[in-house]
């Protein structure tokens, strides 16, 4: 698939305790435990060329973040496919949730639905769930069941917005919106939505330049790590590292060490917090793709750097990681055999009656 190839072509961040294969092309930056890296420009794909790090390794101290240029890139570059970097904002909608921003690189001409799928692939999260009608039911596996459930006069649904100077409630589905440079895709889960444009937008800035600074003008697949590496992080992403709950791992909340001289995209991370550690424990430690932009708030004193963070309450993570397809195939086989037997019996009986007449 072209979309996947383009994604693979982007600078790749590898996380692991040690990965000699990945250390060849990029700089190695040590960051504190479980820190989340953010690459504001270009798509970043968490790819494993080496052994899959175990959760324990991912949570271990001084995880190594490696930036590598994927080998697949060369072929795509030769094809000259033009890609667009689309910021995707996903807001889980809960009072303590914050919007997550992912910068997804897709081929030009993709739809927002494809962007959303590419994002899920990028993060190793469940792909978006749609109803047969095309209504989006779930993002990242949330909610696990149901689709626009009605609750009195309210609907629990994912509201779809387009960014820009401000958030606009979309008037059509993501499958019929073709992305172009400067587009921002925004999603917010409305637990008590009215299904009208009055529903609240995602709690994050709406400008593409703000969310993924190098995405405007569009970058192509010929981007190299050095060309996409801004030395500073977006100014709006000032945040405090709030350890939501949990608190396992070292909640140091210390600013990460950023290697400004290296060819790597700027890597910013906060100290490990509980939720961050939970994220590190995922099977696919897809670091560096999703950042969290808190609602605009005054920067705390003494923190001029811009730690971008990802915050997902552990409960939500549990929801996300619940396998959706847990049905045993035994029931399926029994049902199929039953149907086949009944159909064969009916056909036999019909034939016998016809012959008897």
């Amino acid at each position: 698939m072209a979309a996947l190839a383009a994604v693979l072509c982007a600078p790749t961040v590898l996380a692991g305790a040690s990965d000699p294969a990945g250390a060849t092309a990029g700089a190695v930056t040590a960051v504190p435990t479980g820190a989340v890296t953010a690459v504001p420009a270009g798509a970043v794909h968490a790819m494993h060329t080496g052994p899959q790090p175990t959760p324990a390794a991912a949570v271990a101290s001084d995880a190594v973040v490696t930036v590598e240029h994927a080998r697949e890139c060369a072929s795509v570059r030769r094809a000259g496919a033009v890609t667009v970097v689309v910021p995707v904002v996903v807001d889980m909608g809960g009072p303590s949730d914050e919007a997550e921003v992912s910068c997804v690189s897709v081929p030009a001409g993709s739809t927002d639905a494809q962007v959303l799928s590419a994002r899920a692939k990028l993060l190793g999260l469940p792909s978006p769930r749609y109803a047969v009608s095309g209504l989006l039911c779930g993002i990242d596996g949330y909610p696990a069941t149901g689709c626009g459930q009605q609750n009195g006069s309210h609907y629990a649904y994912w509201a779809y917005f387009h960014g820009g100077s401000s958030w606009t409630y979309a008037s059509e589905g993501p499958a019929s919106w073709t992305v172009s440079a400067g587009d921002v895709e925004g999603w917010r889960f409305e637990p008590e939505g009215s299904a009208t444009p009055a529903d609240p937008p995602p709690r994050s800035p709406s400008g593409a330049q703000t969310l993924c600074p190098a995405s405007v003008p569009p970058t192509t697949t010929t981007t190299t790590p050095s060309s996409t590496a801004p030395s500073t992080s977006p100014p709006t992403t000032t945040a405090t590292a709030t350890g939501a709950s949990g608190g396992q791992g070292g909640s140091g909340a210390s600013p990460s060490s950023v290697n400004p001289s290296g060819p790597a995209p700027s890597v910013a991370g906060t100290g490990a917090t509980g939720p961050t550690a939970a994220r590190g424990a995922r099977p696919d430690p897809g670091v560096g793709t999703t950042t969290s932009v808190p609602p605009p708030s005054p920067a705390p004193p003494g923190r001029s750097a811009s730690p971008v963070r990802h915050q997902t309450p552990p409960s939500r993570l549990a929801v996300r990681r619940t396998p959706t397809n847990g049905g045993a195939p035994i029931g399926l086989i029994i049902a199929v055999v039953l149907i086949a037997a009944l159909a064969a019996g009916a056909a036999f009986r019909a034939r016998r009656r016809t012959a008897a007449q």
Partner: protein
Amino acid sequence: MTDVVARRLTGVRVAPLHPVAWWTWAILLAAAAARITNPLCLGLILVVAGWVAVSRRPQSTWARSYGTLLRLGALVVVIRVVVQVLFGQRLPGHTLFTIPSLALPSWMAGVTVGGPVTADAIVGAACQGLRLAAILACVGAANALVSPFRLLRCVPAGLYEIAVAVTVAVSFTPQVITSIGQVRDARRLRGRAVSGPAGVRGIAVPVLESALERSLALAASMDSRGFGRRAVSASRQRLASAATLAGLLGLAVGVYGVLDAGAPSELGLPVVGVGALLVITGLVATSVGGRTRYRPDRWSGREWVTVFVSAAALAAIVVVGRHDAASLTMPVYPLSLPAAPPLALVGLLLAALPSVVAPPPIDTAVR
């Protein structure tokens, strides 16, 4: 009625199942199918309806309607998939092939012409088509199991006008099926084409003509035999007709409110209740005349069992839908195997019981 005569001649005393029982069974099964896109449950409904139809259909001209409506259902599935391939939503999935696409103006947002065709979209469309095919199969089974004329005899006098219209409409499909067979046979005997475009052209006109003629003849014969003649005053008759009509309208709206989850809740059961009350009033008002029925169909334990098992099937589907709605739908985006909800499958399987409970048709009972 030939089957009645045959029964008297052979001395077989078992009366065929009440027509209303068969139609209730079929309609309840179709109502269950309308709530499902899970291909396993839909497939089970298809084979259950088919099994009962081939087991208990009498030897009559419309006994073939199940097979015919099954083929019609297959056509529906094909049309649904083709429409999906050409104009459907282009959601990301497992792309099979890409057809040339057309750029449409922005006011046609949501509609696409051409583009990538995914396995997910095709499976989703096929399951939606299958739902319609299952409903058609239920109607086909009812048509195969009971002649529409027997159903007509059961309609109360208060519903005279409606009964005539419904019976003529309902009998149209089996009449068409009968006519097709007759016209084909006639053409074959004359050495004319029965298949291909020439065959279709030669068959279509006489079939439509004869079906229409038969329907009119049916209406005329019912009228000449005094069907629906009532012994009540004209004013009372009008009042009863109005009440019945309003009641039926209320029932239709109310049933829509019950079945459609998006309808306002006050549209559901209250409207059904008011409609049923009006219909009963109309029926009672017109039944005062004291009509007698010639050789009426009896409603016994077999009929109750038939209605009960189909109601149980629908109830099982409703209960499963309340607790685990996802198991009744085909998971399309992302594509995965359908669930096999045990309660729903057992409930639907229960609906095959009339193939044992109902008395066997005359031709097999003789042997």
